[in-house]
């Protein structure tokens, strides 16, 4: 006790200083709003940062639940997306012209299923009988021919792609106007190449010559199909077999147009009569 008293006495200056200074600081913090606010603020800052750290670690423990909740929310949000809705909108532009009766009109459709690697490829689009699609209509894209409508349901239709061994389309060479039929899948199953048959031997065929639709079948005349890749592949007859590089890239097909021919029924009815006459 005595020693303590000696100790305090020796450093009396310091203890007095601490005493008075402490009293002053207490006055400062308790009576001045700015310092009080600041003192509480800084202490809450420290406490806040501690809480933040703890929360950061606690976050790991509930990670599983959080992931589940987020996945559920993602699924709910995905269901609200426009792409998950069925696109019912049909834009078809028909030009009304009294001098020229329109023969073809186009229905735009989106490809929702597609294949290019099979022997017989089919495409499904999001248009069906509700939108006026009928079996046998021609389908094109912005780059060329796609195929022929095979089956139609209420909202969807399947298209027999050009890359199908049964597809046969009437095509002609752009310069000579000689026509033949375009087939696929006889020699190769390359989705980029097709074969133009039944072009007579005497026709001069140049490389890179354009191959277009003839207009005899479902398609309007003059639609580009591709370019001549190899000429004169002879099959031992009086006709040429021409290898055609297809203009259309079937593997990246997204949007197609389905062609409605106003007079197709009349044409077919007339042509059936020919067969009956035989």
């Amino acid at each position: 006790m005595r020693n303590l008293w000696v100790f305090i006495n020796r450093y009396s200056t310091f203890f007095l200083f601490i005493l008075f200074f402490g009293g002053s600081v207490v006055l400062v913090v308790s009576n001045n709003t700015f310092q009080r606010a600041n003192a509480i603020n800084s202490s809450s800052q420290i406490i806040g940062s501690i809480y933040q750290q703890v929360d950061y670690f606690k976050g790991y423990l509930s990670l599983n639940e959080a992931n589940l909740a987020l996945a559920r929310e993602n699924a709910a949000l995905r269901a609200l997306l426009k792409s998950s809705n069925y696109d019912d909108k049909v834009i078809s532009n028909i030009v009304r012209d009294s001098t020229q009766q329109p023969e073809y009109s186009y229905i735009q459709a989106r490809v929702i299923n597609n294949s290019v690697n099979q022997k017989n490829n089919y495409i499904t689009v999001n248009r069906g009988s509700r939108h006026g699609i009928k079996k046998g209509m021609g389908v094109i894209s912005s780059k060329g021919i796609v195929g022929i409508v095979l089956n139609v349901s209420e909202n969807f239709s399947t298209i027999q792609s050009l890359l199908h061994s049964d597809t046969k389309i009437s095509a002609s060479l752009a310069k000579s106007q000689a026509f033949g039929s375009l087939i696929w899948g006889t020699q190769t199953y390359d989705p980029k190449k097709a074969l133009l048959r039944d072009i007579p031997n005497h026709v001069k065929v140049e490389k890179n010559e354009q191959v277009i639709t003839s207009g005899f079948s479902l398609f309007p005349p003059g639609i580009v199909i591709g370019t001549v890749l190899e000429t004169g592949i002879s099959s031992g007859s009086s006709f040429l077999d021409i290898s055609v590089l297809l203009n259309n890239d079937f593997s990246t097909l997204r949007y197609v147009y389905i062609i409605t021919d106003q007079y197709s029924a009349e044409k077919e009815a007339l042509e059936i009569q020919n067969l009956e006459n035989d």
Partner: protein
Amino acid sequence: MTKLLLENILRFILLILAQVFLFKNTGYYNLVIPFPYIMAIMLLPVRISKGLLFLIAFLTGLTIDAFYDTLGVHAAACVTLAWVRIIFMNLTIQDDDHDSISPGIDQMSFRWFLIYVFILSFFHHLTLYLLESFSLNNILSTLTSILFSCIFTTVLIILFELIFYRRKKR
């Protein structure tokens, strides 16, 4: 003894009044503010008891705080000043023949007095500004303020000393 007491009380009152009514409005924006009232604590007799010195310093600070509406800030600064004063005295004055006289140019050398005033006002201002800003944000501008205010206060105190106490000696 009575004369010494009266002199100190008069000096205290005059300096407080000067501080509150004159120097409170003097200064270069908020950068440089002089606090020459600390002269009242600086010029207290050399061998004043520690307890009394701290008490006077504390009360001086509180008086100024009352006028400045900053309760405790000046008190803390003055207490710091008193502490530094005791340490400085212990380091520089060894002999006991300075009992009960005021430290001044007439008693000490001019150099001693200049260093004494500068160091004491520096610690006073340091405590004052740091407590006032109460954060280490803008520490650079606070330190600049401290330094320039300290110089200003020192100049003022030296001027007072030269004007009032040199004449008395003559």
